[in-house]
């Protein structure tokens, strides 16, 4: 699809230009953060997952502006284009990874498939957390936050995780509704 390949080309060009940091430092720093959350949550996995998702949300609402300012991405007219820009351009620009984007039918959901996950480098989940701790739920929060700033209210779930034994990481994004900008409502004609 031309939209997918131009998004990918844009992503590649942006990745080449952005200043870089060491990926291992990135992974280890996330690990340190997760450990802080784990120790503060007293073993309550739901709380841990929720906190990590919230942290992701905070990153998402902030990083979207940088993406818009620096990427020159064309305006996305529908969720499919948004999915391509998110997966092919944004993920590439920020993380240097190539994602697969899978659009579902009806096109109110899409999945991002990561073959390479910078967050889970060096990570092995202990048995008591293996099936419950969603280590990379951070991405779900980031996507939810970023899309909310663009008026898409979505729900993200970690469908597959290499830390649980799957061969890829997959994040499913479901569109719940599209928010309207509030400012103009007062002035609309009745």
């Amino acid at each position, binding site marked *: 699809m031309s939209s997918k390949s131009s998004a990918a080309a844009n992503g590649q060009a942006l990745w080449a230009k952005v200043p870089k940091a060491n990926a291992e430092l990135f992974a280890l720093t996330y690990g340190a953060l997760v450990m802080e959350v784990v120790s503060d949550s007293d073993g309550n996995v739901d709380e841990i997952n929720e906190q990590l998702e919230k942290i992701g949300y905070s990153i998402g609402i902030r*990083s979207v*502006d*940088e993406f*818009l*300012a620096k990427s020159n991405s064309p*305006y996305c007219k529908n969720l499919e284009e948004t999915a391509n820009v998110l997966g092919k351009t944004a993920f590439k620009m920020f993380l240097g990874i190539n994602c697969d984007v899978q659009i579902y039918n009806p096109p109110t959901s899409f999945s991002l498939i990561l073959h390479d996950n910078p967050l889970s480098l060096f990570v092995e989940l202990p048995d008591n957390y293996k099936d419950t701790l969603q280590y990379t739920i951070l991405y779900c929060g980031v996507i939810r936050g970023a899309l909310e700033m663009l008026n898409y209210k979505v729900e993200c779930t970690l469908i597959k995780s290499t830390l649980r034994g799957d061969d890829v990481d997959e994040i499913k994004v479901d569109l719940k509704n599209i928010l309207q900008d509030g400012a*103009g409502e007062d*002035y609309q*004609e009745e």
Partner: protein
Amino acid sequence: MFLHLFIVNKSGGLIHHRSLSSKAPKLGTNEWLRIGSTFHSLYAIANEASPVKLPGNKKNGADDGIEEIQADGMTLNCFQTRTGLKFVITAEPNTTAAVDLGQILREIYMLYTDCCLKDPFYELEMPIRCELFTQGVENLIQKYSRIR
């Protein structure tokens, strides 16, 4: 040649204002807050009142609101981000011949994304107090002021 810069958040609150040269009129804080929210409302009205919508959004901005105001004493340029943030700059009328105000606003947006959004001490939607940002804007304005 530049007069003022101000930044309005999504809810119409003023998060940043500064004068860009000694020629700029001095305004009190309350006046600034009023300007911020007034402009926010005017922008929304203009969006609703506009008879023609831009086809497919030719640029990065989202809605069709106020982009430029040209008056006898000044010219105003506004850039609204797709996240609802408005960057507004005013300048003396002859400025646009020498510089592209839109470009300056876009660069200030980039500074904002770097110096404010990545600063752990900055809270979103709050007034900007990031030293790196103010210094960056200062340098940017000086650079453009030297272009004649």
